[in-house]
Each structure stands twice: as structure tokens, then as C-alpha cells.
């Protein structure tokens, strides 16, 4: 039985892995029904981002602006001034990279109620290859003032995150996945922006992960348990504002941290955690991420393995960080 499909309870094993983009698309429709102020712009990728669910229900509040990412963001900014919660949607590479200046100026500098929600984060995009696999969005989004950055770990969390960013004023960036991800959270779990969730308690080290890497971290924790190593697992769904208290308390409790993300090692979750540790509570840290390279074509599973984004890579990092912890003392 694949331990990746479960968290703490057996009933979760029955749930089919689902892309987080589906959670976004479905929740957007639910929100559209209760909130007439939700509007969506799209760069002709609503089929892929799942914004098309909203388009079908609310065609008058949906704008496919064509393949014009800059316009997708700028128009959303303008719409938001008329009291709308404006979602700007496309692939992560296209909006965060190509329309960066619009996100910086129109959305963040003007501090408007725009939610940049992008599917196709990370190498799990798969066969399309590097051009479509966004590996730098956390880095470039989190350095923007006013911007908050979220990466849900599964379908259930994606729905909660979509609701939370809709109901919280101001700029947000949210990354969703194309690939089906194991369901690892529960309906009753609390989702608060900026508050990480502890999924497993443990003593020797903590893994702080986001997105697809949360299920890998759970799997690593299962496998390490068999070796007698107890691993704390934290789901850091909000990369900005980062949960400083959680990071510091994990550092104090376990004395060694590993971060895991489907993103470049530079500038993302690992960097955000390192910034906190360096300033508040220095302790050994290992970062699991993509090592300064572009992706390539392949299946999501092949690519996760190739780029060192599997449970075994987390296990390796945990063992290393525990050794460093001992020599650190």
C-alpha cells in the first residue's frame, strides 16, 4: 500500500489524487455563486487553469483576453477598482514571468484586489517540458511588497486557499498543479493564511514543505519511522508571509530543518526559511529543490525523481541535517 496516499487516517486512502487546479476551479464556481464581485481574466488557458468552470457558470464575469498576459493582469487591476475581486489566470510561467512588470506595478505597487492564480507550477507539468514548468515563481513573487504567496498541497487545501484569498483584500499569488496530487489534508483542517499546519509530530528533525512535496515529506516520515527516526512534518502552504513562529518553534524543538519545494533551491521556500533561521534561531538547514536548472519533458513521476524531489531525497537531506545537528552542538 502506498503510504503517499495517506496522512494519519485510513479513510483518506480511498480518495483519488486530484490536481490542485481542480480545487481552484471548483471553489471559484462556488464563490461565484455567493459573491457577485468575483470576476476572472484569462490568457486563453482557462481550460488548463480550470477557470473555465467559472466561465461556464458566469460568462458575463469572465474575460478571455487572448494570448496577452500583460493585458490579463492590467485589465484585472482595472476591474478591481470597481469593487471586484479580480482573478488573473494563466500558466505560472506566463503570468509571473512575462507579465512581471504588470504584477509589480499594477497589482502590487497600486495594492489592488487582484489574485494572480496560476496552474502549471513545477516540473510535474510533465511532457510539455521546461518552457511550461515554472520553477521560479515563489522567488520572484515573494520579493514584491504587498504580495502574498500560497501553494496548496492538495485539492482540499486548494479550495480553502481559493476561498481565503477571495475573502482577504489585496494582492495574492497562488500556484496550482497540473498533476494529480495525493489528498493529504482533511476537510476539517483549519486553513489560515500565513499559519503553517503541523501534519506529523517528531523529534529528530522537521521537514517544512509545500505543494506536491508535502506528500513526499509524509512518505519520508513513514519510511524514516521504520528506521527509528521521528520526523516532524509541516505544511507551509503560505510562503509569504512566512510563519516565523512555526519555523522558530520547529528549530527549537527539533534542532534541524529540511525544506522541500518543487521550485529552484534559490529564492523560494528554502530561502524564506533560511532568512528566518538566520535572523532568529540559527540551526542546520538542508534545502530540497531544483538545483539551478531548467526542467525537461517526461512524466511527472520521472521528473520528480530526476530532479531530486522524491521522499528519498528528503530522507537523504534529513540524515545529513541530523549529522550536522550533532556536530553543530
Amino acid at each position, binding site marked *: 500500500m502506498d503510504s503517499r496516499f495517506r496522512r494519519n487516517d485510513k479513510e483518506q486512502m480511498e480518495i483519488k489524487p486530484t490536481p490542485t487546479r481542480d480545487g481552484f476551479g471548483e471553489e471559484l464556481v462556488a464563490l461565484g455563486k455567493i459573491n457577485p464581485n468575483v470576476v476572472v481574466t484569462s490568457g486563453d488557458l482557462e481550460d488548463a487553469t480550470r477557470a473555465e468552470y467559472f466561465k461556464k457558470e458566469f460568462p458575463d464575469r469572465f474575460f478571455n483576453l487572448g494570448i*496577452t498576459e500583460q493585458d490579463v493582469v492590467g485589465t484585472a487591476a482595472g476591474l478591481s477598482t470597481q469593487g471586484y475581486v479580480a482573478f488573473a489566470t494563466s500558466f505560472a510561467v506566463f503570468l509571473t514571468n512575462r507579465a512581471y512588470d504588470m504584477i509589480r506595478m499594477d497589482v502590487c505597487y497600486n495594492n489592488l484586489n487582484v489574485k494572480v492564480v496560476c496552474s502549471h507550477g513545477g516540473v510535474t507539468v510533465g511532457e510539455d517540458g521546461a518552457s511550461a514548468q515554472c520553477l521560479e515563481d515563489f522567488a520572484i513573487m515573494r520579493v514584491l511588497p504587498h504580495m502574498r504567496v500560497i501553494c496548496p498541497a492538495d485539492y482540499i487545501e486548494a479550495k480553502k486557499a481559493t476561498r481565503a484569498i477571495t475573502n482577504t483584500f489585496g494582492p495574492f499569488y497562488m500556484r496550482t498543479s497540473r498533476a494529480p496530487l495525493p489528498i493529504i489534508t482533511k476537510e476539517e483542517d483549519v486553513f489560515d493564511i500565513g499559519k503553517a499546519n503541523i501534519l506529523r509530530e517528531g523529534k529528530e528533525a522537521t521537514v517544512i514543505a509545500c505543494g506536491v512535496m508535502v506528500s513526499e515529506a509524509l512518505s519520508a516520515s513513514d519510511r524514516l519511522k521504520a528506521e527509528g527516526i521521528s520526523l516532524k512534518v509541516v505544511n507551509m502552504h503560505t510562503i509569504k508571509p512566512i510563519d516565523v513562529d512555526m519555523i522558530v518553534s520547529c528549530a527549537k524543538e527539533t534542532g534541524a530543518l529540511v525544506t522541500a519545494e518543487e521550485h529552484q533551491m534559490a529564492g523560494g521556500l528554502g530561502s524564506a526559511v533560511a532568512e528566518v533561521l538566520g535572523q532568529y534561531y540559527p540551526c542546520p538547514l538542508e534545502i530540497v529543490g531544483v538545483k539551478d536548472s531548467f526542467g525537461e519533458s517526461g512524466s511527472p513521476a520521472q521528473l520528480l525523481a530526476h530532479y531530486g524531489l522524491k521522499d528519498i531525497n528528503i530522507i537523504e537531506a534529513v540524515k545529513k541535517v541530523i549529522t550536522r545537528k550533532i556536530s553543530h552542538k
Partner: protein
Amino acid sequence: MPTQTLDIESLKKKAVVFRRDILETLETAGSGHPGGSLSAVEIFLTLYGYQINHKPLDPSWEGRDRVIVSKGHVSPVVYVTLANFGYFPKEELKTFRKFGSRLQGHVHTKVPGVEFNTGSLGHGLSFANGIALGARMRARNFKVYCVTGDGELQEGSVWEAAMSAAHYKLDHLCTIVDYNKVQENGPTNEIKNLEPLGKKWAAFGWHVIEIDGHSIEALKKAFDEFSITKGKPTVIIANTVKGKGVSFMEGKSAWHGKAPNKEQLAEALKEL
């Protein structure tokens, strides 16, 4: 109808005041952009003094027409216009570009009457489209104006937005191009030719009006034409002179982004 309409004679008198205020503001600041400010004086004057519905003492009034300044570097003409129309005390112009001032180097919403922070070119029109779409959905009847530069039209994002405005038939949106023919490093049409500019906009589905952008009469007529044009957005291509009104600045790219010193200011003021 505009909230406050001025006759041609008082508008013409105001143009002189605007140019003086712009030059003095720039001299006090020691930096800034005179060329594109002086070229756009009549555009802003006619907008605020004739065309738009606005309440300077209630700048966030929901029914106001929206003026989006896409060429954000012409903050001098924007702030001078707003101060002269009573949005904030003229005295404050002395703080332009100074630390702690509301009057940021490029237009900023800290300043009453400014709708959108700009400064990076090619942003205004998409934003204006968004406002226009939102207003239509809300059944709000105000109009949206977007003032762009000409060098700015080299930005591809302008044309993305131009397509959208025509596609969505935003006939309550009017773009005014300050076509002063000069950008930072030389003549616009030598750096990257915009011509045939009117035909480009027409091909993108816009109603095109080409005028002398220093003629208040022509601007008024153009705005009147915009007001009755249905089914497509309007662009007013305002042919202007960079640095208009100051002989040593006119047509000179060197005065795109440089403030006059005391002597130059004195010389310039003599000419107005």
C-alpha cells in the same frame, strides 16, 4: 456634462499659468520631465477644464470620469493641473520629488485626483480597459480617459490593450496620444517608426481623430466627437511639440528628463 466648464479664453489663459507652474515646479525640484509635460498642457487643461465630470473636493466621488495617466513621468503637468483645479494646495507643488512628499516623481495615487500609480510605460490602457469593463458591468455611466505618450506606443502591451478595447467595444473609453514626436534619445520616428500611426489605431478597430494637440478648440471638438461615437473606442492623436512654449526646449530630446536651472527658468518664463 462636465462639473466645471471653462470657456476658451480662460482655458488659454490657464495654459500660460500651467506652463509657468510646470517650469517653476521642475526648477524647485531640480529634476523631472519638462518636455512631455509642456506638450500635454492643453490635453490636460481641456480634459479637466472642459470635458470630464469631476469634483476636486471629492476626488473619490464614484461618478467621476477616470483619467489614467499612462505616461507617468509627466507628473509635473498632472500635479499642476490637479493643483490648479483645486485638488490640493498649489503651495504643495514646491515639495515635488522631495522626500516625504505626496508628489512622487512619477504619478501616484497619494495625490488627490490621481487614479493609478504609473511610471513604467505601457500600463495605462489595460488598466483603463479594466475600469471601463467594470463600469459597464456595474452600469456606471462615467467615461474613462487614458493619456499615453508616443514613445510609449513602442511597448507591445499598448497594442494588447488596444485589441481588447476594440474587441469589447469600449466606446466609453478615450485614449489621447500626446504625439510630440520626441523620446528620450531622439526623434520617435527615427528610433522606432510609429507611422502610419492613425492607420495603426484604425486597423486595431478604433475611431481615430487626429488634431493639433495645442488647439483647445480642436481638443474640445475631438472630445465632443468621442462623446457621440458608439460601438468602438476613440483615440485622439494629439499632434504636439515636445517642450511647447519654451523655444530652447521645443523638439529637443535633451529636455525629456532634465529640469531647468534658475537662469533657464528665468529665460523660459520671459517667453510665456
